[in-house]
């Protein structure tokens, strides 16, 4: 173990920075759409995370929160949404309202 103060300071700085970086790292949560169903239908994430919907159907879908965000999901393509505010949200496909999903966003 080195007693060199400069090295100790450097290590502290480095580890300190790493410790700060970890909670700030956003994750991507994936939801697959296959045969008109979101899977998983219920997801939990936190503010700053990103949801990626992967549309496997040959149909255009959306992920639409009533009175809120809407992500258009073209056939066989994916779409993304960065979560801005905490809360509990039901979402549907605007074109096929029998497709239902639920999203819990933690602060």
């Amino acid at each position, binding site marked *: 173990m080195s007693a060199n103060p400069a090295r100790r300071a450097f290590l502290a700085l480095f580890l300190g920075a790493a410790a700060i970086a970890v909670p700030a790292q956003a994750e991507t949560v994936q939801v697959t759409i296959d045969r008109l169903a979101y899977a998983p239908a219920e997801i939990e994430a936190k503010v700053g995370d990103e949801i990626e919907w992967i549309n496997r159907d*040959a149909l255009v879908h959306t992920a639409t929160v009533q009175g809120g965000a809407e992500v258009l999901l073209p056939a066989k393509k994916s779409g993304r949404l960065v979560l801005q505010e905490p809360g509990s949200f039901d979402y549907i*496909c605007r074109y096929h*309202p029998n497709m239902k999903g639920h999203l819990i966003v933690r602060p």
Partner: protein
Amino acid sequence: MTIRLATAAAAIALLLGSNWALAADKPTDQQIAHIAYTAGVIDVEAAKQAIATSKNKTVVEFAESMVRDHESVNKQALDLVKKLNVAPEDNDTSKALSQAAETKREELAKLTGADFDRAYVENEIAYHKQVNGALETLLIPSAQNAELKSLLETGLKLFQGHQQHAEHVATELK
């Protein structure tokens, strides 16, 4: 006006009802493929009539999504029958569907503006309900080929979605 439309809807239900029942002597996969394809074509044509006639943004957008979805599913159906090497076969149910659609098209052609919009959307609700009933009780249970059955099951989920979408549009028109 309302009474006339209701009568027309009842007549169609009766006509289809009896023909679905006739076909209940177990349609073959070839006939099922033809019925499902015909049902899709009819809805695409109805949607094209709506796109050409309606000035309502919500109605036009709904109609556009009908064209998009039914064309996509019918393309999948064509790919499947080609792969399975089954030739879709015309039958009484397909003929009755086409006949009822033609009558409806002529009836809608006499309407404009909000009257057209309401009649088109009401018919979309009734039509999808009718097709969904036939899929659930007759076409899906009768289908022999697993891939055809699976496509019909996806079709049912899709058309149930269309029915709900149409119901939602109808509430906006009130």
